[in-house]
Structures are given as structure tokens and as C-alpha cells.
């Protein structure tokens, strides 16, 4: 397991090396923030540099750090898994747009249970994470899984101990399906967990669940897949059983009303639709609308334009979900807000 687990990290590391090797070049695009999209940004950056000669210096310091850095204008773009609200965007003159999506999946480690065999629903998952369901043979779990042999063992709950966009999206979903969760625990990048053990990062949770018998955790879909973890199916908002697959995440995105929130800040948790995976999330880029360095901002937008057009295959290979074309068209309109000191958009692509 450790071999496959490090694969993504190695990939990212290799990309980082190639990026930093070109860091002396003044024309590099600089960005900082979320760790979740880091592997795909690195992959894109590598190809982009070989095609155009422009490198990307992306520091995966976490969403919170990315927001701080872009507010302080030390980078050209910030990256965050949790979208900023409309008033926060306006206050800091920020423009926000999504780049890729991913799914969050519950993973379990129970002897004799294989990937996709167990199914959970939102309220049950919330009760497990509240510490109200403590054993695997609880009637609520047994009722959903009549064909499984469930052990009468205590559930070891594993959560992210570091603040993360993954946790934000996971708790958003639990808050959506459980009033108890919403009022007693809440929704944030880091919460006061009523029970369980904390592990750092997606890798940490993957490792803890892999090591601890009778445990449950939540990780990005890509990590579950690459570590061959036992993911569970979910009952979605339409009451249908869905498996965590690329088309189920894409269905969540297709059913969402992207223009309903400023900066495309829609939360893809618990979206309607028969085929929709209930815990889907996009990751976002933040840039200043009053660009101090118009050339740098234009270079960054050019990179993302290139990524929207050419990056889908690479995203798919790393188990990310590309944005639908309809959303990309809206994003490109939004880019007109990013203007230099002359009041003109810093970047206009040919197709727009």
C-alpha cells in the first residue's frame, strides 16, 4: 500500500523539481494554496512549461495559507478548496473560479468487506461521526446492508486533524443531512470532533484507516483508488445508491447551478439527481480583480486557459474531474473582471 500511496507524492515531487529548476526565470507564474489539486497543477505545469517555456511556481501550503498569500499579494494567484463567500471576495477585490473537481469518499477497514460492497446514507454517516453509532453491527448500518456480515466491534472513527478543504466539504455534507451535526458540530475546515482519532492529510487518513482494523475515514477519491482502499457506496439525495465514480461526480457538477453564487462558490454537497455522488467538491483559484502586475496576471490566466483546453486527459489520469464546458465559458466571462491599472481586462482569449 505504501508504494502506491507514494506514487502521487513522487509524481508531484518530480514535477516540483522541474518547476523549481526553472524558478530563476522571471516569467514564472507564482501561486500558493490548496494541497488537494497540487498533483494536477504540477502535472499541467510540467507540460505547459515544455510547450511554452513558462513555468509555474506553486507552493502547496494549504488553502488557508493560499488565501493569506493572495490577500497579501505575494503571489499572482491563491488556491483554496473552500470557496470564499461573496462579501469576502468583494472586500479583498478577488475573483474566484473553479479549476477541477474531486469526490470525497468514506473508506472503511473491516475484515471480509470489499470495496463498494457496503452502503451508507448521510444520517448514518453523521451518527457514526457524532459517536452515536459506535458498533459496526448497529441496526442502522445492518438495515442498509442486510447481506453483509458486520462485526460487533467498536468503530474507530478517523478524521483529518489538519484544517482542510476536504473536511470543509465533508462537514458541509453532514450538516446538510443532519440537523444535529449542523447545530452541535458545525461546518468548517476544522471542527471540534466529538469522537475518533485525527490524522494529518489525505495520506495520514489513508494510512490510519489502512492500519486500524474496524475503522472508517474520509479521503479524496484519488487517494482511495490509488491505495486500493475499501470505499463505500452512498445513498444520495434522490434516495438512490451510487458508487463513487467519475460520472457520479460529474453528475453532481452538471446538476449544480453554478451562477447562483458569486465566484462560482456553489457547494456540491448533497446535490439533486439520480446519479449524483453526494460528496463532490470543486477547488478554486483566487486572483485580484485590480491586478498590480497585469503581465503576471495575464500569464496566469493564459495558463489556466491552456489547462481548461488541454488538461482534461491529465486530470482524468490523476482521478480529478474536469470542469464542464458550460462552466468554463462562464469562468472566461468572469475573467474580464481581472483588469490592469488601465481598466482593461488583462487577458482575453481568442475564442471568447
Amino acid at each position: 500500500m505504501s508504494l502506491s500511496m507514494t506514487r502521487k507524492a513522487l509524481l508531484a515531487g518530480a514535477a516540483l523539481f522541474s518547476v523549481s529548476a526553472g524558478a530563476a526565470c522571471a516569467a514564472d507564474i507564482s501561486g500558493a494554496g490548496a494541497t488537494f489539486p497540487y498533483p494536477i497543477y504540477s502535472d499541467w505545469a510540467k507540460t505547459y512549461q515544455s510547450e511554452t517555456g513558462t513555468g509555474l511556481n506553486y507552493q502547496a501550503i494549504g488553502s488557508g495559507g493560499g488565501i493569506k498569500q493572495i490577500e497579501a499579494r505575494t503571489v499572482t494567484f491563491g488556491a483554496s478548496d473552500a470557496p470564499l463567500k461573496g462579501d469576502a471576495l468583494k472586500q479583498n477585490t478577488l475573483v474566484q473560479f473553479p479549476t477541477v473537481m474531486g469526490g470525497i469518499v468514506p473508506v472503511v477497514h473491516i475484515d471480509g468487506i470489499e470495496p463498494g460492497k457496503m452502503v451508507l446514507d448521510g444520517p448514518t454517516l453523521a451518527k457514526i461521526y457524532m459517536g452515536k453509532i459506535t458498533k459496526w453491527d448497529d441496526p442502522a448500518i445492518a438495515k442498509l446492508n442486510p447481506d453483509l456480515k458486520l462485526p460487533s466491534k467498536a468503530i474507530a472513527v478517523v478524521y483529518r486533524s489538519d484544517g482542510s478543504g476536504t473536511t470543509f466539504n465533508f462537514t458541509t455534507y453532514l450538516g446538510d443531512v443532519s440537523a444535529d451535526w449542523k447545530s452541535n458540530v458545525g461546518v468548517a475546515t476544522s471542527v471540534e470532533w466529538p469522537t475518533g482519532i485525527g490524522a494529518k492529510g489525505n495520506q495520514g487518513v489513508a494510512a490510519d484507516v489502512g492500519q486500524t482494523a474496524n475503522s472508517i475515514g474520509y479521503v479524496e477519491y484519488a487517494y482511495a483508488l490509488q491505495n486500493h482502499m475499501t470505499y463505500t457506496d452512498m445513498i444520495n439525495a434522490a434516495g438512490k445508491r451510487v458508487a463513487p465514480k467519475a460520472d457520479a461526480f460529474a453528475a453532481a457538477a452538471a446538476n449544480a447551478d453554478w451562477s447562483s453564487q458569486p465566484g462560482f462558490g456553489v457547494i456540491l454537497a448533497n446535490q439533486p439527481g439520480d446519479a449524483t455522488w453526494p460528496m463532490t467538491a470543486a477547488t478554486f483559484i483566487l486572483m485580484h480583480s485590480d491586478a498590480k502586475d497585469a503581465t503576471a496576471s495575464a500569464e496566469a490566466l493564459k495558463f489556466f486557459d491552456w489547462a481548461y483546453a488541454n488538461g482534461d486527459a491529465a486530470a482524468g489520469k490523476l482521478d480529478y474531474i474536469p470542469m464542464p464546458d458550460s462552466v468554463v465559458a462562464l469562468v472566461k466571462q468572469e475573467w474580464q473582471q481581472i483588469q490592469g491599472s488601465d481598466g482593461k481586462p488583462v487577458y482575453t482569449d481568442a475564442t471568447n
Partner: protein
Amino acid sequence: MTAIDIPPPLSDPRARALRADRIAHGVSLGAALVVLLVLIGVTLSLAAGAWPAFRDLGPGFLTAKVWNPVTDRYGAFTAIYGTVITSVLAMLIAVPMGLGIALFLTELCPRPLRRPIGIAIELLAGIPSIIYGIWGLFVLAPLMQHTVQPLLIATLGNIPGIGALFAGPPYGIGLLTAALILAMMVLPFVASLTRDIFLTTPPMLREAAYGMGMTTWEVTRHITLPKSATALVGGMMLALGRALGETMAVTFVIGNAHRMPASLLQPGTTISAAIANEFNEASAGAYSSALIALGFVLFVLTFLVLAAAQLMLRRLARRNGR
């Protein structure tokens, strides 16, 4: 060197030596002052960063058991508790073992074995803490979950009183596992330090004692240990200081939960683990200030330990008539 100094004639060797003296004095004074400046700088920036948390939460910050980023209410007690419990437990395990290793190496060990064992211990001390953490998670934690913890729960867990310390489902990771990892990390430190201290016992004293027919145990008990006591206490305090601040290895195996479990088998957190986990993504304002305040608490805690070590060393020195 400078224009205002009237340079003595360079031909005078005495003047040249004097000037070299002055330069050496200035450079070394500067180096020493830099250390002091850094210390003051760290203290001030920690205090400034922690101030909003102390101002808003008051002294209750130290005693509150809540850590809730959603409602922005923070208390340091769970982290302080975890830090102290794991460090003290680690010392309880590592000190007797370290003393034993040092005694064996200095008094009992056959000569050909002495060097290999000594080198092995020093190599252990050089292993980076993240390696201990990974080993703890992938090797020690499963062993604890499948073998050690069920055994503890089934035996010690049934004794009234101390049973509460060993209650409950075996997670594999938790306070006890963290303490064990910490003990392993400070053990080589304690052992090599203690061995070096034992070796400073004047050989004439030991040989004289053996000559008078004292047994190995009597020499250790009445000659080596009393002669080394002062240095030993200082060394143990240094090891404790190291255990208090250890971060990565602990983060891997403690469970990172802001709770204060009665049972040693349950997850908790330490100050440094909490900072390492949460600082990256902490939003500006109360959250990051509370984390810096935690750092300030750790700073004070470590300072107190070192101060206590100094105090004890002085008392011992006075009692020994030195």
C-alpha cells in the same frame, strides 16, 4: 581597524597581539549577543502573536478544555495535558532503561562489545523523528492494536481504580503509543549522556573501592551514582525538554484529538502536534492567535523545566559542598 582608532605601530608584536585580543573579544561578544537577541525576538513575537488570544480568552485559555474552530472558542488544557502526560510517561520508561544501558556499558560490558553497542546507541539518536513516526504508525500501532492493547484492557483494565487508565476500544494509536515512541526517541539520548557522565567518575575512586572489596553494585550505588547525580539530573531535564517539544513522531501516533481522555489508550494531542497540524490552514484572527498562544505556553513550559533543572543542580552542588 577603524579610522578613529590610532593604530599602534604594527611592528610592535605586543600591540599586534593586543589588537587581536580586542577583535576576538568583540567578535565573540557579538556572537553571544546574537543568541540573546534571537531569544528576546522569539519571545516578543510569540507574545505579540498570542496577545489577541490571551486578551479575548483571558486566563481561562489555560484551563479551558474546548477547542472549537467553528465557534472560535479555544483552550489550551487538553494540549498541555497531552504534552505533560506523554513526556512524563516517556521519561518514566526511558530513564531507568537508559541508566541500565549506561551501567552495563561502563561496568559490566565485555570490552569487545562496548564500542559496537555505544556506536549503535549514538546512531539511534541520529535517526530523524519523522522516521520514528512512520515506524510508529506502520509497525508499532498495529502491534499495539492487535496484541498489547487488548492484553492491557483484559488484564489491567479490570483492576478497580487504575482500570480507567486502560479502558476501551484498542485504536492502536493514542497517548500510550505516543509515550512509547517518545521513550524510544529520548532513550539513546539518556543512555549516551548517562554513559558519558559515568565515565567522568575518577577512575582512582572506583579502583580504590573495588580494591577495598566492594561489589559492582556497591561501587555503583555509593561511588558512581552520587558522584554523577548532579550531571544526571541536568541530563534528564534536557531529555525531558526534548520530549516536550517533539512534534512529528508524536503527530503520527497520538491521534490528534483535542480531548482529555482518562484512558491512556485513547487519542489525545500535544501542543506541538496541534500547531503542526492546524497552523497551515488556520484562518487569520482568533484561530491562528490561539495556536501561537499554544506555542507561547510550550515555550514557558520548556523554560520552566530548564529553570527547575538549574535550581536542582545548584541545590545538589551546595549539598555536595562544591
